[in-house]
C-alpha cells in the first residue's frame, strides 16, 4: 500500500516512453501495448489499493504516503503567528480518492482500448503522440485525485488542463481545434487564478495546505452563517477555480468548443474525469464549504443555473458531440447544486455514475461519427439503428441512464440530488426538475435523430463485393480495413471490437453503477454515501466527532421522516423524464413538422438558444477585445510615451552636444589653433637656419666653441 504513488506514475512512465521513444521508433501496435499496458497496471493497482482500503475499518480508511519533500520548509507569517511553508509530494488514499482512482483508471483504460481502434487513421507518430498525451493525462488526473495537499492537487489540476489543451488541439492543423485548445487553457487559467489565491489564503489562515490538517483546523472554527468571513473567502476563491475546470457559469464557454478534440478525448477528459475535478475539489474541501453557508448558496445557485442554461442550449444543438457537451455542463451543474446543498455524497455518487454513462455516450457518438465518415451533424444521420446495433443498444442504455429512468445508474444518483435539493431549497428543486425534463428530451431527441427515422446521410458507393447497407454490422474486420482512410467510404457500419468492447463494458457499468447507492427509501443502504462519509468530515477529535454525530443523527432523522416524500419525488421525476421522452418522440419521430412550427413561433428564443445566449460574443466583445486593445494601446504608449521620453532626452542631449560642439570649435579650438598658428609662423623664419649645408652647421659649432673658449678666457 506504500506504493499508491505508483498509480499515477505508471501512466506517467507510459507517457514518457511513448513520448520520448515511441514517436520516433514505435509501431502503432507497440504504442498501444505500452499505453494500454501501463494503464492496465495502474487500474489493477487501483483495484488492489481499493480492496485494501475496504478491508480497513471505516474510521481508519486512510493511507498517507509522502514520497519526498518538494518545497522545503521556510518560515512565513500566517494569521496565527509564525508558520512554516512546506510542501511534500504527499499522496493520500481515502474513500473519496479511492472511488476516484477506480473511475479514472477504469474508464481511462477503457478509453485507451477504444482509442487503439478509433485513432487508427493517424500516422504512427501521431498515434504515439496521442497515446503519450492520453497517458500523461491519466498521470496528472491520478495525481490530482491522490494529492494529499492543495499544491499537489494543483499540479494535477494544471497538468490535466495542459493535456486537455494538447488533446483538444491534437489536430493542430485545424485552426478551430487550436483555438478551442487555447480557449480551454486560458479559461481554466482564469479559474486557476482563484484557485491559487485560495491556496494562499488557506495557508495564511491555517498555516498548512494539507487537506486533512486544514479540515481539522476548519472544523474547529465557527460556521460563518451570517458574516462573509475568511473561510467564505477561501471557499469562494476555490469555487472560482472549480468553475473554470468544471465549466460552470461564467466560465462554461470552453467546454463545448473542446469537442474539437478527438472523441475519446471528449469522453475521457471532457465528460468522465477532468471536468469533474471541480466537483471533486469541492468535495475534498467539504468541511471548509460547510463552514461557509453563504458560499454554499452561491455554489448551489450557480450549479442550478448552469444546469438549466446548458440543458436549454442542448435542446437545439444539431452537432451530436455538442449536445453531449452541453449535457455534460448541465450534469456538472447538477453536481455543484448537490454540493451547494451539502449533499457531497450525492454529488460524488452522481460524479461516478455520470462518468460511466457520459463516457458511454461519448464513445457511442464517436462510433457513430466514425461510421458516418466523420460526420457530426445529426441532421445528416438517422436510421442508423439497423446499421450499428451494438452502438445503438449501448447508447440507449446510456440515454436511459442520463434521463433518470430506473433502474439505470443515473436514476439513483440524480434522484438523490433532487431529494436533497428538495429538502434544502424548493426553488432550486423546481429548476432541477425542469432540467431533468429537458435532459430527457434532448437525449431522446439525439437518439431519435441519430438512430431512428429515415437515413438522411450522403449516399455511398455500392461496393461490388458486399455493401454495408445490405449486411449491416457484419464482417467488421473488413470494415476496419476500409475505415483506415484508404479507399472509398462504404456507408455506415458497425465499429470493430476494440470500440464496441468498451461500449459494452460501460453499458454494464451504466446499469449497475447505481446499485451501490440505492436509497433507503427503496430498501437500499445508500452504501456509497456512507462509504464516502469520512472524507467529508474532519472525523477526528472528540468535539468534532460529536458534531458530525449530531449531523448524522439529524440527517438520519430527515431520512426516516421523509421516505414517503422521497418516493413521491421519485415518481415525479420519473414522470417528468418520461414526459421529456414522449415529447422528443412526438416532435422528432411522429410529427417533425410540429418542431418546425414551434421554431417559427418562438424565433427569438430559438435564436437565443441556438447562439448559446450570446455569452461567447459577450466575452469576446468585452474581455478578449478589451485585453487585446489594451495591449495594443499600451504598446503604442510604450513606443510613444516611455520610449518617446527616452528618445526625447537623447534628442536633448544631441542638441546640447551640438551647441557645445559649436563652442568647442570656435572658442576652445580657436585658442588652441591660435597657439599652433603662432608657433608655425615663428618657426617659418627660424627654419631658415637649417640650410642643409654641413659646413654651416660646422661653422655654428665652431662659433659655439669660440664662445665657450672666450667665456673661459674672460672668467679666468
Amino acid at each position, binding site marked *: 500500500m506504500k506504493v499508491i504513488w505508483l498509480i499515477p506514475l505508471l501512466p506517467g512512465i507510459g507517457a514518457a516512453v511513448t513520448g520520448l521513444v515511441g*514517436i520516433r521508433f514505435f509501431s502503432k501496435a507497440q504504442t498501444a501495448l505500452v499505453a494500454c499496458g501501463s494503464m492496465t497496471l495502474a487500474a489493477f493497482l487501483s483495484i488492489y489499493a481499493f480492496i485494501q482500503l475496504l478491508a480497513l475499518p471505516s474510521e481508519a480508511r486512510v493511507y498517507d504516503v509522502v514520497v*519526498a*519533500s*518538494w*518545497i*522545503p*520548509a*521556510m*518560515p*512565513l*507569517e*500566517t494569521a496565527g503567528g*509564525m*508558520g*512554516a*511553508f*512546506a510542501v511534500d509530494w504527499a499522496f493520500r488514499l481515502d474513500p473519496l480518492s479511492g472511488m476516484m482512482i477506480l473511475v479514472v483508471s477504469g474508464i481511462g483504460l477503457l478509453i485507451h482500448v477504444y482509442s487503439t481502434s478509433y485513432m487508427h487513421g493517424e500516422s504512427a*507518430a501521431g498515434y504515439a503522440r496521442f497515446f503519450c498525451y492520453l497517458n500523461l493525462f491519466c498521470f496528472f488526473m491520478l495525481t490530482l485525485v491522490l494529492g494529499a495537499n492543495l*499544491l499537489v492537487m*494543483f*499540479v494535477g*489540476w*494544471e*497538468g490535466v488542463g*495542459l493535456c486537455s*489543451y494538447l488533446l483538444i*488541439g491534437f489536430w*493542430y*492543423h485545424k*485552426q478551430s481545434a*487550436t*483555438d478551442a*485548445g*487555447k480557449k480551454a*487553457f*486560458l479559461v481554466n*487559467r*482564469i479559474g*486557476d*487564478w482563484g484557485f*491559487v*489565491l485560495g*491556496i*494562499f*489564503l488557506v*495557508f*495564511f489562515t491555517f498555516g498548512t495546505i494539507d487537506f486533512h490538517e486544514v479540515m481539522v483546523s476548519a472544523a474547529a472554527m465557527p460556521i460563518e452563517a451570517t458574516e462573509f468571513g475568511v473561510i467564505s473567502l477561501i471557499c469562494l476563491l476555490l469555487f472560482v477555480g472549480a468553475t473554470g475546470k468544471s465549466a460552470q457559469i461564467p466560465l462554461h464557454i470552453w467546454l463545448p468548443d473542446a469537442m474539437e478534440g478527438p472523441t475519446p478525448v471528449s469522453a475521457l477528459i471532457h465528460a468522465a474525469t477532468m471536468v469533474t475535478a471541480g466537483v471533486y475539489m469541492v468535495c475534498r474541501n467539504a468541511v471548509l464549504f460547510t463552514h461557509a453557508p453563504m458560499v454554499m448558496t452561491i455554489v448551489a445557485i450557480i450549479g442550478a443555473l448552469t444546469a438549466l442554461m446548458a440543458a436549454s442550449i442542448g435542446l437545439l444543438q444539431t452537432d451530436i458531440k455538442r449536445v453531449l457537451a452541453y449535457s455534460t455542463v448541465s450534469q456538472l451543474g447538477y453536481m455543484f447544486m448537490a454540493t451547494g446543498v451539502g449533499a457531497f455524497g450525492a454529488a460524488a455518487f452522481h460524479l461516478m455514475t455520470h462518468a460511466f454513462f457520459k463516457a458511454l455516450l461519448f464513445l457511442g457518438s464517436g462510433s457513430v461519427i466514425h461510421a458516418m465518415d466523420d460526420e457530426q451533424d445529426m441532421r445528416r444521420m438517422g436510421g442508423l439503428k439497423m446499421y450499428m446495433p451494438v452502438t445503438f443498444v449501448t447508447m440507449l442504455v446510456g440515454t436511459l441512464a442520463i434521463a433518470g429512468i430506473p433502474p439505470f445508474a443515473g436514476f439513483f444518483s440524480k434522484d438523490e440530488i433532487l431529494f436533497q435539493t428538495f429538502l434544502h431549497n424548493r426553488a432550486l428543486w423546481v429548476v432541477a426538475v425542469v432540467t431533468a425534463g429537458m435532459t430527457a428530451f434532448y437525449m431522446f431527441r439525439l437518439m431519435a435523430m441519430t438512430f431512428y427515422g429515415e437515413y438522411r446521410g450522403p449516399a455511398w458507393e455500392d461496393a461490388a463485393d458486399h455493401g454495408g447497407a445490405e449486411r449491416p454490422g457484419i464482417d467488421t474486420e473488413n470494415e476496419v480495413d476500409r475505415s483506415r482512410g484508404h479507399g472509398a467510404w462504404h456507408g455506415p457500419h458497425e465499429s470493430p471490437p476494440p470500440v464496441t468492447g468498451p461500449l459494452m463494458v460501460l453499458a454494464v457499468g451504466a446499469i449497475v453503477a447505481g446499485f451501490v447507492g440505492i436509497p433507503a427509501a427503496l430498501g437500499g443502504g445508500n452504501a456509497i454515501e456512507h462509504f464516502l462519509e469520512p472524507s467529508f468530515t474532519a472525523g477526528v477529535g472528540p468535539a468534532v466527532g460529536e458534531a458530525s454525530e449530531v449531523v448524522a443523527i439529524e440527517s438520519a432523522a430527515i431520512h426516516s421522516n421523509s421516505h414517503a416524500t422521497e418516493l413521491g419525488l421519485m415518481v415525479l421525476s420519473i414522470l417528468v423524464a418520461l414526459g421529456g421522452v414522449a415529447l422528443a418522440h412526438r416532435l422528432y419521430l411522429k410529427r417533425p413538422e410540429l418542431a418546425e412550427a414551434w421554431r417559427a413561433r418562438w424565433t427569438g428564443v430559438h435564436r437565443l438558444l441556438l447562439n448559446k445566449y450570446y455569452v461567447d460574443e459577450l466575452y469576446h466583445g468585452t474581455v478578449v477585445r478589451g*485585453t*487585446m486593445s*489594451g*495591449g*495594443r494601446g*499600451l*504598446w503604442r504608449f*510604450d513606443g510613444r510615451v*516611455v*520610449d518617446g521620453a*527616452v528618445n526625447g532626452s*537623447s534628442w536633448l542631449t544631441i542638441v546640447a552636444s551640438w551647441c557645445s560642439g559649436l563652442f568647442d570649435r570656435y572658442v576652445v579650438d580657436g585658442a588652441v589653433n591660435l597657439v599652433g598658428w603662432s608657433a608655425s609662423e615663428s618657426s617659418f623664419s627660424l627654419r631658415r637656419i637649417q640650410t642643409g649645408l654641413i659646413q654651416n652647421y660646422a661653422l655654428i659649432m665652431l662659433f659655439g666653441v669660440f664662445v665657450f673658449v672666450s667665456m673661459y678666457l674672460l672668467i679666468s
Partner: protein
Amino acid sequence: MSNTAEFPLLSLILFTPLVGAIVLLFVRRQSTDMIRWIANVVAGIGFFVSLPLWFWYEPRGTQWQFIERLPWIPSIGADYFLGVDGFSALLVLLTTMMGSIAILSSWTAITERVKEYYVFLLLLQTGMIGAFVALDSLLFFLFWEVMLVPMYFLIGIWGSDRRLYSAIKFFLFTLVGSVVMLLGILAIYFEHQAVTGVYSFDITRFHELSLPVDLQWWVFLALFLGFAVKVPMFPFHTWLPDAHTDAPTAGSVILAAVLLKMGTYGFIRFSLPILPEATVEFVPMIISLSIIGIIYGALVALAQRDWKRLVAYSSVSHMGLVMLGMFALTPVGITGSLIQQFNHGISTGALFLIVGIVYERRHTREISEYGGLSKVMPVYAVIFLIMTLSSIGLPTLNGFIGEILILQGVFVVNKMWAAVAASGIVLGAAYMLWLYQRTMFGNVDNPKNESLPDLNMREVATFVPLLVLAVWIGLYPAPFLRRLESSVTHVMSRVNSVYAPRNVEVGVSGLLMRGQ
C-alpha cells in the same frame, strides 16, 4: 570569514574565459573552425571548473564561501576580494552554463568576424562571473562596467536591423544607471570611513553598517536607478525590447539569462542588506512599479507581431514578478524571487534560443511569417512547448516553483498585490499560447517554411541541459532552495525584524530552516 579556500576556485572560474579570449587573439582569423572549437572548449572547461561550486558548497556552512582576498589598491582600501554565497554560486553556475550554451548555439549563426565575436563573448563571460563573485564593491563595479563593452559590440556588430540604435540605447541606459550607482557606492564607502575610520570597499563590512536613515534614502535611490535599469523595472525598460530584438541570438540569451539578473542581484547584495530602513520605506513604490511591470509587460507582449520582441516583453513581466517577490520581504517571497531568477534564466534563455533557431533558418522574426511549424519541425515544437509551459509556470516545471513561492510570500503581506500579480499569470499564458498557436499550429501556409530542417544534434544539445534543469527544479527544487537558505536568512535578518533569527522560536528557524 574563516572559510577561506585553500584552492583559488573562484579565480579559476573567473579567468578561464579570459584566458580563452587571449588565446583566441593569437589564432589566425581565417581558421574559423578552429576558433569555434577553441571557444566551445574553453566555455565547456569554464562550466566544468564551476561545477565544484555545486558540489563543494556547504549549504549549512558559513555564509561566504570560497573566499579569496588579496590587496588590490591598498591606498583606497580596495581588495581583490572574491567569495560566494548560495545565491551567487547558483548565478555563477547559471552564467557558465548559459555562456557555453550561447557559444555552442552560435556555431553556424555567426559567419563574419568570428574571432572577435567569440573574444567578446568570452570577455563578457568573465565580466558577468566577476560581478557575481566580487565581494569588494569597487571590484564589483569594475566587472559591472566590463560587461557593458562586449555586449555593446555584440549588439552593434552582429545584431540585426536597428542594431546601432539598440546598442547605443543599451549602453547609455546602463551607463547612466551605473554612474549613479557608483555615486551610491561611494557614499556608502565614505560613510563607512566616517563611522569606522577604515577605508574599505568590502561588501561584507557594508552589511554590518547601519547608516543614517536620510542618507539611506538617497543612497537607495541612487542604487535603485542603477539596478532598476538593469532589471529592468517598468519605466526604465525600453532598452530591453530593442536590445533583445536586435542582438544576435547568443547575445539575447546571455542578456536575458544573466545580464538581467545583475539588477536583481544588486538589490539583494546591496540595497536590501545595506539599506534596510530605506528598503522598507521604498516597498510601496517598488511593489507598484513591479505590478505595473507584470501587467504592462504581459499586455504589451500580447500586442506584439515580432516573435523576439514578444519574448522580450515577457521578460519585463517576469522580472516584475521577481522584484515583487523580493520586496515582499518575507523568506518565502525572497526565496521565490531568487529561484525565479534562475528559472527565468533557463526558460527565457531557451525561448531566445528557440527564436534564434528559426531566425537563422528564415531570417525573419515576424510571427505571421510562420505557422504550422510543428509539422515540419516536430522536435523543435516539443522543446518550444516545454519551454513555453515552463515560462507560464506550469506545475512540475521550474517556473511554477518560483511563481508559487513569490505569490505566497507576497500574499501574506498584502492580498491585493498577490491577486493583481496573479492575474499577470493568466495573461502570461495568453500571450505565450497564442504565440505558440500562431507559429507552431495550423497548416504550413508559407511555402518557405515547407522545407525547414528540424533541429540537428548540436541544437538539441543546447537545449538538453535546460530541459533537464526545468524538470529537475520543477519536481525536486530542494537542493536549490537549500543553497539559497543562508542568503535569504542573511537578507531577512537585516531587513525584516519579524524574521530576524532572535524573533523566531528555535522550533521554526532552527529546525525548519535547517530541516530537510
